């Protein structure tokens, strides 16, 4: 990441809110609440490990920040460097979480 750049994540993970920045050029970012009517969606773990050329079993899990899912939710990874199996993580209303294998090519 270049000096002076900032990446902000809208959302939250189990260990707290995550953003990545080179903070020297920025004041502290204040905590923000989700828009009215929206609930926080998060990963079960903030980071995962994958070995090249393989899928890591059940590496990615999504869950609501509190309680179970209030409606059907599906998410998918952007780009082509990483893939999930199945292609999207889908949770039905009432489910606690949804998981998928995460993989990347041997050349990553």
């Amino acid at each position, binding site marked *: 990441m270049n000096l002076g750049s900032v*990446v902000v*994540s*809208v*959302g*939250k*993970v189990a260990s707290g*809110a*995550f953003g*990545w920045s080179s903070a020297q050029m920025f004041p502290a970012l204040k905590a923000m609440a*989700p*828009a009215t*009517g*929206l*609930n*926080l*969606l*998060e*990963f079960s773990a*903030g*980071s*995962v*490990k*994958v*070995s*090249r*050329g*393989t*899928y*890591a*079993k059940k590496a*990615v899990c*999504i869950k*609501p920040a509190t309680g179970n*899912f*209030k*409606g*059907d*939710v*599906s*998410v*998918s*990874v*952007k*780009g082509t*460097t*990483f*893939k999930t*199996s199945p292609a*999207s993580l*889908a949770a039905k209303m009432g489910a606690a979480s949804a998981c998928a*294998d*995460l*993989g*990347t*090519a*041997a050349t*990553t």
Partner: protein
Amino acid sequence: MSTHMVRWSVNNGTNLYTALPVLKVMVDGVKAEVKVPTEVTCSLGGRSVPISVTASAVPFGDIKVKLLTSSTKNGDKTVQESVGITPDTNEVVLKVGTSEGVLGFACNTTITGTKLKYNLDGSDKLQFTIPSEVTVKGQKAGTRPDAPKMTLAGVASASTPSKTVVEGECPGMGASWICLTPVSWKASILGKATDVRAAAAKFVKGAEGNYKNQQWYYQSV
């Protein structure tokens, strides 16, 4: 090891949930393992026991495993190590949705060779390890029993309302298929090994809605 910030899309449920944060993914070069036996018995004048091929991880693309004859160089001389042993020409392709396969080979009535080689190919071959060779042991075929006793029974102590555990015993080396079907379905008994293989091949382990189908289990013996 390299670190990647992976972005995600919420495709369904955007009216209820926020977007996801980026996910930190650490990619390493730890190699997975192709699991194959390093010693296999074959019946002289017949076939090897089925060689089950699995892997410790699912390949991102695919890996392909097949058996080849083995030879070594001793100076200018080539020493054949698979005399009397003929590997099958098929290859096992492991990929998403295919987690196992079977290899095999034929043995002459007399074999002087003792080895075959495993050949690993496919888009992810460099990320997997496999034993380089398999040692072949010939065994004189026994007398084929006319009516071999085969036992198969439920194990009540290990079964639950949602899971039935059964154990069986085979009369000798080879392959074992077990099929479970509710009595009310009145499934016909398959009398030929080829029919059993075909029926078992249609069963995809772990597929959605499998509870509606006959349950098949395969194990080399």
